[in-house]
């Protein structure tokens, strides 16, 4: 059985401009959403309290919201979570310049909120709570940004060493474009951006670089094999030669991710969603964005075919 019976080389590069325009539009849209709406950060980054509360009967988020509002709680977020009996309550961090007093107030607040919940439904029971102090949240946010930076740098250094800088730059731009799009989608729908989602984004970054690597591996091979072909022809041949594998591997990874999405429960939902977006855009960008970018940056046969000669030249003086 074979899905892709590709008989001739597909002229991807002829349409490079179209792909680039599509990328640019989605990219600009994503940046726009990020700028206008911003990410909906989970309390891990912002600080605050989350309580998962279960009831014997189906929960009534509206009533809970009302009761909490009447008890003087502000900016409270009450959501259904998982089954109908469960609600998720978010208490934002209280503004207070002194982190110590802030922490204490938050502790008191969650106890008070629970008391209110019991008045709405006596069967209310805490399943899970999470409290993150303001200072910890800030650290997590910086650590996350730092991790992203290190991943980008590490991958670039490796690719520059393994191939050459044009490919490294092309790859990282193509994949950062994926990351921005994932973030853009999360901003557009105001999905919660939590630590697992960050992990998914970084994992996807490492994973989709694979595709570019596979294509560029083939490009290198073809530069050596197809002596007379133009850069465009070589890129086309390389992409055509690998596209079937790309789709199949991404497809199988996606099967796993779908399994997490459907069976992994509410706490892994956004993690799996981020992976799904990442995998879909990963196919597109690493194949159809990275290759044209490398060409624009001036990748040529000389970069690959005569490395030995260069080494000799260096050794001469």
């Amino acid at each position, binding site marked *: *059985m*074979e*899905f892709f*019976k590709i*008989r001739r080389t597909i002229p991807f590069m002829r349409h490079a401009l179209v792909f680039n325009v599509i990328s640019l539009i989605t990219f600009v849209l994503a940046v726009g959403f990020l700028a206008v709406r911003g990410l909906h950060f989970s309390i*891990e980054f912002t600080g605050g309290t989350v309580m998962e509360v279960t009831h014997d009967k189906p929960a009534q988020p509206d009533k809970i919201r009302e009761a909490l509002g009447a008890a003087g709680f502000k900016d409270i977020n009450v959501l259904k979570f998982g089954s109908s009996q469960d609600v998720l309550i978010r208490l934002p961090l209280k503004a207070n310049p002194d*982190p*110590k007093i802030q*922490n*204490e107030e938050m502790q008191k607040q969650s106890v008070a909120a629970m008391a209110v919940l019991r008045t709405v439904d006596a069967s209310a029971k805490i*399943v*899970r*709570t*999470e*409290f*993150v*102090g303001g*200072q*910890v949240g800030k650290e*997590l946010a910086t*650590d996350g940004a*730092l*991790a992203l930076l*290190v*991943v980008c740098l*590490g*991958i670039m250094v*490796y*690719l520059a060493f393994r191939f050459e800088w044009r490919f490294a730059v092309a790859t990282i731009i193509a994949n950062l474009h994926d990351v921005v799009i994932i973030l853009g989608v999360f901003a557009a729908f105001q999905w919660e951006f939590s*630590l*697992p989602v960050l*992990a998914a984004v*970084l*994992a996807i*970054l*490492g*994973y989709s*670089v*694979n595709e570019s690597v*596979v294509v560029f*591996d083939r490009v290198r091979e073809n530069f050596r094999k197809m002596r007379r072909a133009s850069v465009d022809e070589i890129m086309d041949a390389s992409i055509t030669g690998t596209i*079937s*594998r790309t789709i*199949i*591997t991404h497809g*199988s*990874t*996606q*099967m*796993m*991710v779908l*399994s*997490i999405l*459907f*069976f*992994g429960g509410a*706490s*892994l939902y956004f993690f*799996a969603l981020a*992976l799904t977006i990442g995998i879909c855009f990963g196919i597109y960008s690493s194949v159809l964005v990275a290759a044209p970018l490398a060409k624009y940056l001036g990748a040529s046969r000389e970069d690959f075919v005569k490395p030995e000669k260069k080494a000799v030249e260096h050794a001469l003086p």
Partner: protein
Amino acid sequence: MNKYPVWKYVIIAIALVVSLVYASPNLFVEVPVVQVSGARASVKVEPALQSELEAAVKGAGIAIAGVEVAEGHATFRFADTDTQIKARDVIQSKVPAGYVVALNLQSATPKWLQALGAKPMYLGLDLRGGVHFLLQVDMKAAANKSVERYVSDVRSLLRDKKIYYSGLAREGDRVVVRFRESDQRVAAQKLIEKEMPDLALREQVAGEEAAIVATIKPEIVKKEQELALQQNIQTLRNRVNELGVAEPIIQQQGGDRIVVQLAGVQDPGRAKEILGRTATLEVRMVSEEHSAGPGQNAFAAYKDQPAPFGTDKYLDSEGNTVLVKKTLVITGDRIKDAQPGFDQRDGGPVVSMALDDSGGRIMRQTTRENLKKRMGMMLVERNSTVVLTWPVIQEEFGNRFQISGIGDVQEARNLALLLRAGALAAPMDIIEERTVGPSLGAENIAKGFKSVVYGFVAIAIFMIIYYSLFGVISVGALASNLLFLVALLSMLQATLTLPGIAAIALALGMAIDANVLINERIREELRAGMSPQMAIQVGYERAFDTIFDSNITTLIAGLALLAFGSGPVRGFAVVHCLGILTSIFSAVMVSRGIVNLIYGGRKKVAKVYIGNTEWHKKDATA
């Protein structure tokens, strides 16, 4: 062609067998147990105690499924959690002081596996249920307190040696001693230099007055902070022992933080209450000059009045107003021991205290100078200070003394515990807290397990349909990958979290990439007209470079996550990185091994079962 030397098969076989052995404990169900262990490492459960407890449990009509004594603690196994809890109550009532009784779950792994060190994967809090606290130690408060202590140490030292000073005060983090006469200053400087090498001294002359400015040496400050942290950890450990938690984790994190993880705690609220008690002890003199006389109502007049200059106003445990001087006599970190007991004269409950040498010296001097005056022992918590007791000093005493005037025996016991274990070197704040109920943990395991299984099955079906025999081989390699990963996680006892299970699923999803790469390459070579044996050989060789490259980049991402991630993300990163390593081995070594077993060494291979690769020929002839 396509033959592996024997040693490669041996490596694969050993890897598989070892993994099978170490992964197998995960298959055994966990049984409820009650563990009895010594509160301190030196206290061990002796066989006599174990058989006594066993008899007691049996006497209460509770069936025991098994008993073990190992490494100084006894483990009683039970059929279900109901009997476990009943038995816990029985054991709790029989166990002498100094032992901790805890509920736990233990894998029913057979003895011979345990002897090999095989254990099931270590589950994180989100899978087992429990509480996690991150506590920030207030180092500034610790530093302030230590400056205060030096102020009182310098004071008692100068008084002891009869050196006269005109002023002694704390200014920020410095101790400033002023002198009218310069010979006194010189003498004082010599004395302090000799007796307190932890202080860095500096002279300061302003007009008529000469002064010594003492600061604590930076390396001492650092050492004291470390000590404060260690003492707080020890205090937390003592408190956790009260809770009866099976395997508490209490660790330092960074320079000023402590992580506490208590898995399987039934009542997170109580854990928080006990851990959160940030009590320290302070001893200060009662301000007798404002007192209206002896008795409880000495300071009743100040009930609604502000505290006079130089004093602080607090309530005692019965609600009476007490005025104490601002000057500290000693703090709780001078206490070496506190034990409940009985007064030898009137038989009333007392707490016998033991102080360290420096504390004893200060106490001796203070009590000598303040006979028949009252001394306040205060428990300082975050926002509230309670005067535990304010007895009259009957006689001079040093580093051993008794606190009397305590209500009853129970109160004496509580007070001793608070004085002994309740003293934190520095106050702490909970800056991160996570509690997960036990039912949610079980639910998370089930969900994670389902995701892995269904995902695996879907990929397996697809691979077998798409690549026929080579698909089967790929699925075999993928299964071995899962086995290696689980075995590694069990061996390393790395914490498995829900994101960690997601990482297992993702690792499998990504690992199949390598097999697809190989299979596609072989197909391509076959299409190009290579002989089957050649195609297999070349397919594996060419695919290897790509597999290596792509895994390296994924590994970079994984390592960065490991370095910067915390909590759940760390759990993800560990599995992610390990998954990459096992997938390289299984995709390259194991799948090649199977292929070689099937095709290797055959003279003639007519067909490679890797799906149809002949379609383009038909096209050409058509």
